[in-house]
């Protein structure tokens, strides 16, 4: 297997596997946030704020894998 093929597979694996975890995490996070809002609609504002903070941190992991995939795929290093 030549270097180019390895590089492409590595980039695809980086983004493919790297989004698995954040995807699960986002699903769980929004599930519980919506549950909380459903149970107590008056607290929706506060729940949404904390949900967005959580989303930001969870999604950051997926974004890191995107960065790594781009770095590998576009031969930046």
């Amino acid at each position, binding site marked *: 297997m030549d270097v180019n093929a390895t590089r492409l597979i590595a980039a695809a694996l980086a983004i493919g596997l790297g989004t698995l975890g954040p995807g699960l995490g986002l699903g769980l996070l929004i599930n519980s946030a919506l549950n909380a809002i459903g149970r107590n609609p008056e607290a929706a*504002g506060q729940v*949404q*704020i904390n949900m*967005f*903070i959580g*989303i*930001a941190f969870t*999604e*950051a992991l997926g*974004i*890191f894998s*995107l*960065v790594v995939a*781009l770095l590998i*795929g*576009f*031969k*930046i290093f």
Partner: protein
Amino acid sequence: MKRWLPVLVIVAILVVPGFVLPRFSTEAVSASVAVQPEVLFELELGSFTFPVSNTLFTTWIVMILILLFAIFATRRMELVPSGLQNVMEMLIEMWDELGHSVAGTRSRKFLPIVLTIFIFVLFSNWLGLMPGFGPIGIIVADKKHPAPEGIVTFDLPPALEEFLGPKASEHASEGEHATVLAPFFRSPSTDINTTLALALVSVIMAQVFGMQTLGVIKYWFTRFFIVSKFIEFFKTLFKGKPKFGLLVYGFLDIFMGILEFISEIAKIVSFTFRLFGNIFAGEVVLLIMAFLFFALPLPFYALEIFVGFIQAFVFAILTLVFMTIATTAHGAEEHH
């Protein structure tokens, strides 16, 4: 019929050149996906040259569009709004309510920046979806402008290669003579420089607001250099009864401060690449779908309109939330 006439004319203007223009193009280009924006021309400003890339050029267009939107929405203001004024009022009311539920009384201070980011990102995301963004441009020869590192060219599908003539494959195979299409317009969100600038504005303004509200010293020493536990420990030490538990908490706080620093850096990275990644990936998906089947981009186009709005919304609301956190005093920790 009368109402639809302008729409038909616009569609005709956008569609007809697509059938006519390829016949005139003498040189075929391989479709390329480039992270780096192409430089259109260079401005000579005294001693140094200022490269103007297509994303910067489109940023100016976005600025002009926002200016026109603002002027036309507020030109003849009425008590009962209609048309553009209605849109503007809806936008501002929505964000005012949202800002009040997130930041409370501080929302009026944050909203100018948050709304500016929202409108700018929304306009640039949606402008990038307009027909004519991408396919219309100049063909940049490799000899004059060497293709920047990080350009991936792929071979055209056979059907398109037939349509464009045999030159396409020649150019693709020659390598060093490969030609690259530099589009005149490209969405600013597909340029890391734009998104990085927005992320820096967002994160730095959150720090500035935090220092304004809490005071510079209090902000830095309750957020990044948390030394209150150490001071308490030394107070007990001088009294002769040192509490070593406080020392442990002190080191824990120092560690928390370091984590806080790292999270600020991570915020910049995630802001930058969230917007860039979503919009850039969307445009690449549209390009690839167009090569598979002519009607296939339609559902993805609708998705990209939605994604463009959501990303603008997320960027703005995260800015608002981070500003709110930065201006909130860490009061609860001092009482337990």
